[in-house]
C-alpha cells in the first residue's frame, strides 16, 4: 500500500487520457467529406447559443471536416467579437441598429417577448402606458391598476441583454428611468423570480414562457394590445413585441461560415428551432 494512492491516481489519469485521445482521433477530420474543412467560432447571445450549438452539431455531422465552437456571453459581446474578428460569426437576439451598418445580419429564427405575472395575480390586462408607468415607478402598487393592495416588484433585465433593448424600444423608455426591484440575466432566471413572487412583473422570451406555463410553473403571460402571446402569433407577425435571432458577420465571409449560415437558415434545422421553443423563419 506504499504507493497505493499514487497508483490509483495514475490509473485514473491514464484512463481519462486514453478516453480523450481516442475521442480526439474520432473527431479528426481525416474522414473523407465534401472537402469543406475548417473551424468556426461563434460567440454572443445566450438565447441563441443553445440553438446554435444544436445546429452546429448537425452541421458537423454533415461536414466531418468542420468544427464549430459555440461560445456565449450576450448579444453585445457577439457584435463586438464579430467586429473585432475574435469570432467568425456573432450571435445577436435583436435586429442590427442603424449605426451597425458595417455588419451583416442573417436571421435564423424569431422570438417574441411576453410580459409575465405570477399566476395568482388577478390584474387582467395592462395597457402599454400602464406597463411603462409601472417600470418608471409612476405606478408602484397593484391597486392602482385594479389589483390587490400590494407593492409591485419590477423585474428588469441586465444591461447588454437584447431583451432589455427590445423592451425599452417598444415602450419608449430609457434604462436610467426604470425603477427595478430586481435585475436578472437570463430568461430562466426571470421566470423563477416571477414564479416566486406574487407581486412581480417581468418580461421573458415567449417560447420559454409557454414551455414553463405548459409545465404548470406559476406564471401567466399577458396579452399585448389584445394579441395573445403565442408562437403562432409571432409567426404570423401580429404579436407586437417580437425579435429576430440573428447570426452576424463582418466583412468578407469564409466559405465555411457562408455554408454554416446557409444551413442555419434552411428548413433542415426547423425541427431544432422548434425544439428550442423558437419560431422558424418562413422561406
Amino acid at each position, binding site marked *: 500500500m*506504499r504507493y*497505493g*494512492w*499514487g497508483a*490509483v*491516481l495514475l490509473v485514473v*489519469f491514464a484512463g*481519462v487520457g486514453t*478516453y*480523450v485521445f481516442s*475521442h*480526439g*482521433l474520432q*473527431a*479528426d477530420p481525416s474522414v473523407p467529406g465534401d472537402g469543406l474543412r475548417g473551424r468556426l*467560432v461563434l460567440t454572443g447571445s*445566450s*438565447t441563441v*447559443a*443553445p*440553438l446554435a*450549438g*444544436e445546429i452546429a452539431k448537425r452541421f458537423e455531422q454533415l461536414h466531418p471536416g468542420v*468544427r464549430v*465552437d*459555440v*461560445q*456565449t*456571453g450576450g448579444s453585445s459581446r457577439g457584435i463586438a467579437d464579430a467586429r473585432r474578428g*475574435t469570432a467568425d460569426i456573432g450571435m445577436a437576439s435583436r435586429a442590427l441598429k442603424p449605426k451597425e451598418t458595417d455588419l451583416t445580419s442573417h436571421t435564423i429564427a424569431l422570438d417574441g417577448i411576453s410580459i409575465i405575472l405570477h399566476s395568482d395575480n388577478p390584474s387582467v390586462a395592462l395597457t402599454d402606458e400602464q406597463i411603462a408607468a409601472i417600470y418608471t415607478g409612476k405606478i408602484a402598487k397593484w391597486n392602482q391598476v385594479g389589483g390587490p393592495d400590494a407593492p409591485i416588484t419590477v423585474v428588469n433585465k441586465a444591461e447588454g441583454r437584447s431583451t432589455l433593448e427590445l423592451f425599452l424600444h417598444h415602450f419608449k423608455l430609457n434604462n436610467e428611468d426604470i425603477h427595478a426591484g430586481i435585475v436578472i*440575466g*437570463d*430568461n*430562466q*432566471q426571470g421566470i423563477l423570480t416571477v414564479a416566486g413572487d406574487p407581486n412581480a412583473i417581468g418580461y421573458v422570451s415567449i*417560447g*420559454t414562457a409557454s*414551455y*414553463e406555463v405548459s*409545465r404548470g410553473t406559476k406564471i401567466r403571460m399577458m396579452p399585448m394590445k389584445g394579441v395573445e402571446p403565442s408562437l403562432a402569433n409571432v409567426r404570423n407577425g401580429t404579436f407586437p413585441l417580437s425579435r429576430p435571432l440573428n447570426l452576424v458577420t463582418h466583412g468578407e465571409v469564409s466559405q465555411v461560415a457562408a455554408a454554416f449560415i446557409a444551413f442555419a437558415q434552411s428548413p433542415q434545422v426547423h425541427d431544432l428551432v422548434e*425544439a*428550442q*421553443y423558437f419560431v422558424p423563419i418562413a422561406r
Partner: protein
Amino acid sequence: MPKGAIQPAGSLATWSRGRADWSDRAVAVVVWLTALAVTGVFVWILADVLRHGVSGLSWGFLIDGPRDAGRAGGIGPMIVSTLLVLMVCLAVSAPIGVGTAVWLAEFARGGGLLGRLVRRSLDVLAGVPSIVFGLFGNALFCIYLGMGFSILSGGLTLSCMVLPLLIRSCEAGLRAVPDEYRRAAEALGLSRSAVLWRILLPAATPGLVVGLVLGVGRALGETAALLFTSGYVDRMPGSLMDSGRTLSVHIYDLAMNVPGGQSRAYATAIVLISLLMIVNTLTCHLADRWLHRRITRT
C-alpha cells in the same frame, strides 16, 4: 482533576461551581447548535439536490454527450473537461503556490517591503470577484497570448484565482512549524534545502492540504471565470487547446438558459458534488502518504 479537590471550600464554592456548570452547559449547547446548523445547511442542500436529480442519473448520463441543448443525453464531455481544467490548474498553481509560500514564510519572514507588498496583493486578489478573473483571463490568455477559448486558458485563469488561497494557507502552515525545528536543524549543520524538504514542508503539509482542498473546491465550482476562457463548447475535448464546457458551466446553462433543463441541472450537480468529494479525499490521502514517507525515510 481528582474528585473532592475543591470540595471543602464551602457554600460559595458550591454556588460558583453551580454557576460554572450552568455556563459550561450553555457554551456547550451553543457550540453544538452552531455545528449542527452548519451540517444542517449542507445536508439540506444535498437532500434537495438528490431529491430532484437522482432520477436523472444513469451510466449513460455519465458517458454520453449532451443532446437537445442538454435536455437529453449525458455529461461525459463535461466531466472530462472539468478534470482537464482542474489538472492544468493544479499543475500550475501547486508548485508556484508552494514556492511563493516558502519565500514568504522562510525568506521574507521579517516582513520587508516586498514581503508586505506580496502579502497585501495576495489578500486583495483573494477577494476579487471571479468574473474579473474571467475577463482578465479572456484578455490575457485567450486573446493576447493567442490560446483562444481553450481548456488551457481556463486552467491558467483558475490557477490565478486559486493561488492566493493556496499561498496564504501554505504560508500559515509553514509559520506554524515551531522555530525549535529550524534551530535544531541549524545546530546540526543541515543545509537550507534539506531543512526545507525533510522538515519544514512535511510539517507544513496540513496547511498545504487545506489550501489545496479550498482551491479545488473553488476551481470546481467556478462558472464566471470559465465562461469566457475555457468556454461553452460541449464536445469531447481532443486536446488542451480545445474549448470545453465544465460541469458548473453546464449546470449554470441548464438552470438559467435552457427551458426544461432543471432536472438535468440537479443530476449534474450530484455528479459535481461527488467529484469534489473524490478529488478532496484523494488530495488528503496523497498528501498524507507523501508526508509519511518523507518523515519516516529521513
